[in-house]
């Protein structure tokens, strides 16, 4: 029941936002519904920890460890971003009469993001991922400026091009399932059971097509070029959702399929995933050195982290799978924090460029301190959770004997760290060439930033035992040995 409620709450919120007399209350409706969703997701994952699978509608809506983890992440980021949006969108001053439309769309995006991990049928997962893309297009182009529309167009052409390719992939997957003697309904779990009997050549082709198609949506290099445009032009709360969870949801589908391919005994595929993951990390790390806008900087760091997760999944040992899922968790909470901070800076300083912001610490200690903190956290500095998961991925790689990959990955992570910190140093420290001294941070922005900082600090020093067991359950779904 909880699963059905989780999926239908955002739809209900979208409908309520659309009703004319409720349009003025669109923000508060979205925040309440999405926070309820987050509570429900926590409840579902609590159940999953005990029974290892929760069934909403058998064969259609099911949640195992990995799904439950994604549900928690998606609902957490969507709820906080909705809270953040309140004052951020109002502060903008533009499009006030269209705000209800923004929230309506935002809830539809949240629905699509939440439904994908809960779906058991891979073909419906394809539909869900396409819905995510489509609703995100409308939100990226929401501000209807020339550059926002350009970003939306590039985003839509590149990511929708992936759709038919991955559709063909899922059709081939269905064919493989039937040729392997599968008779019942096709679900992720029945596919895993049938992994050994499916013809390997079909499974390979299916994975290849799905990987290319969904890779465009997950922002993996070389299909990442839309990502910095979309993530720099969309309204900041949307950026937080796009970067924090929208990229990891297609990656979640890729990892599910990868685990089936790996279970079927196709070890070479893991090595290819490592290569592609490392290429993504490399491209992001070098581009991080030459970005001009801070929101683009965080967008490139998303490409970097997607690459790291894929590399970890490609290592396919139990330890590296644990690293991959915890990297997913840590990336989501940290990257959404980064965009809340970046959005606050954008709203108050009214510039996107790194070089026109100096001495943020003196202009506003709150913004300066949180920007420094989130930059350190996303770059992977020691007391923060991303450091822990990157460390566990690297050590898992060493234990699996992939020395070359580990050395390259470590070098690139250091390079990305340098890139991010160089840019952020210029913004945070120094003397402001800005006469304005007292910059007020809007209230809901402040609350959202503080609420997002807490888990980033806590998870770095202490992982509560339910989180740990959920991560272990999720890692088991990736099928590492």
């Amino acid at each position, binding site marked *: 029941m909880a699963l059905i409620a989780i999926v239908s709450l955002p739809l209900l919120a979208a409908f309520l936002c659309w009703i004319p007399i409720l349009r003025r209350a669109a923000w508060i409706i979205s925040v309440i519904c999405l926070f309820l969703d987050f509570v429900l997701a926590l409840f579902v994952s609590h159940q999953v920890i005990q029974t290892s699978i929760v069934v909403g509608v058998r064969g259609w809506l099911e949640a195992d460890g990995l799904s439950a983890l994604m549900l928690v992440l998606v609902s957490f980021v969507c709820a906080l971003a909705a809270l953040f949006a309140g004052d951020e969108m109002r502060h903008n001053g533009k499009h006030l009469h269209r705000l209800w439309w923004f929230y309506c769309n935002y809830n539809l995006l949240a629905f699509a993001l939440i439904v994908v991990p809960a779906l058991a049928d891979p073909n419906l997962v394809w*539909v869900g991922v396409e819905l995510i893309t489509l609703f995100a297009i409308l939100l990226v182009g929401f501000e209807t400026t020339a550059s926002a529309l*350009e970003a939306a167009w*590039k985003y839509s052409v590149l990511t*929708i*091009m992936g759709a038919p390719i991955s559709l063909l992939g899922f*059709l081939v997957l*269905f064919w493989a399932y039937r*040729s392997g003697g599968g008779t019942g309904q096709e679900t992720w779990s029945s596919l895993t059971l049938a992994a050994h009997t499916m013809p390997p050549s*079909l499974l390979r082709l299916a994975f290849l097509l799905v990987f290319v198609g969904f890779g465009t949506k997950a922002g993996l290099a070389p299909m990442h070029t839309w990502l*910095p445009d979309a993530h720099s032009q969309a309204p900041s709360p949307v950026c937080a959702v796009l970067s924090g969870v929208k990229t990891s949801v297609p990656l979640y589908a890729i990892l599910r399929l990868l685990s089936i391919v790996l279970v079927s005994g196709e070890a070479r595929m893991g090595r290819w995933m490592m290569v592609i993951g490392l290429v993504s990390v490399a491209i992001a790390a070098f581009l991080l050195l030459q970005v001009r806008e801070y929101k683009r900087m965080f967008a490139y760091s998303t490409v970097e982290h997607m690459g790291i997760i894929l590399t970890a999944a490609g290592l396919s040992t139990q330890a590296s799978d644990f690293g991959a899922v915890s990297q997913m968790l840590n990336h989501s909470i940290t990257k959404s924090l980064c965009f809340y901070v970046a959005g606050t800076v954008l709203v108050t300083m009214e510039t996107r460029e790194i070089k026109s912001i100096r001495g943020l610490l003196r202009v506003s200690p709150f913004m300066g301190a949180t920007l420094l903190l989130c930059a350190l956290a996303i770059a992977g500095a020691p007391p923060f959770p991303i450091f822990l998961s990157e460390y566990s991925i690297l050590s898992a790689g060493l234990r699996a004997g992939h020395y070359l990959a580990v050395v390259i990955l470590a070098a690139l992570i250091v390079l990305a760290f340098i890139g991010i910190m160089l840019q952020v140093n210029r913004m945070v420290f120094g003397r402001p060439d800005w006469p304005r001294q007292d910059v007020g941070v809007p209230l809901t922005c402040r609350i959202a930033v503080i609420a997002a900082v807490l888990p980033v600090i806590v998870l770095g020093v202490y992982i509560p035992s339910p989180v740990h067991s959920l991560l272990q359950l999720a890692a088991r779904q990736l099928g590492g040995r």
Partner: protein
Amino acid sequence: MPAQMSVPEALNTLCAGLVLISAFAMVATRQVQGVVRFFIIQSLLLAASCFLLGFSQHSMHLYALGTITIVAKVIAIPWVLKRTLARVLYVRREIDQVFNIPASLLLALLLAIFSVLLVSPIMSVTPDPVIRINLPIGLAGVLIGAFSLVARREAVPQLIGILAMENGAFFAGIAIAAELPLIAELTVAFNVILITVIIGLLARNIKETIGTTEAGALTELKEEPVSWR
């Protein structure tokens, strides 16, 4: 032909050839209207193929799929395009291309050959003659659609390129995954219409704000080296 073919299956082969030809025609057409027209023809061929295979396999499912295709792609999508993009459709008649027409056709031909090579290792899995026809041609449709998406610099032909890719995927799909749950196919068709609506609205917004639907003119967002001071 490796196995015996019934009459509907032979007609399906004819449809397959025509689908491929219509994919080529979409690459070779210079006018926006012409591209839309060839897309409708291709969708009709896809539906015909559904009905033929449904007849030969006695599958109500494929009949339903053919009906869905006609409703979504022959009726709904051209209607949506007309509603949202009528002005864009008629304003610029000639399409800018990266390559000239003969070069594009040659590249499309190479893509078709490539897709036959790509699926040839799989052909050993199945003796089914329908799959041996539909899968390579469907894949070729997907690849040629992707190519026209990259090579065209106008919003509407790019959108049609995406829809043609979808057609290609389905053309392969009716052979390899005929018993896919109907709900999956219905939502896919709904999705395709939604793509058209959203891209159409976006293209109209771009037309109103920037004044052109030439995707090649959208070059403001990119990375430049910073000057380190």
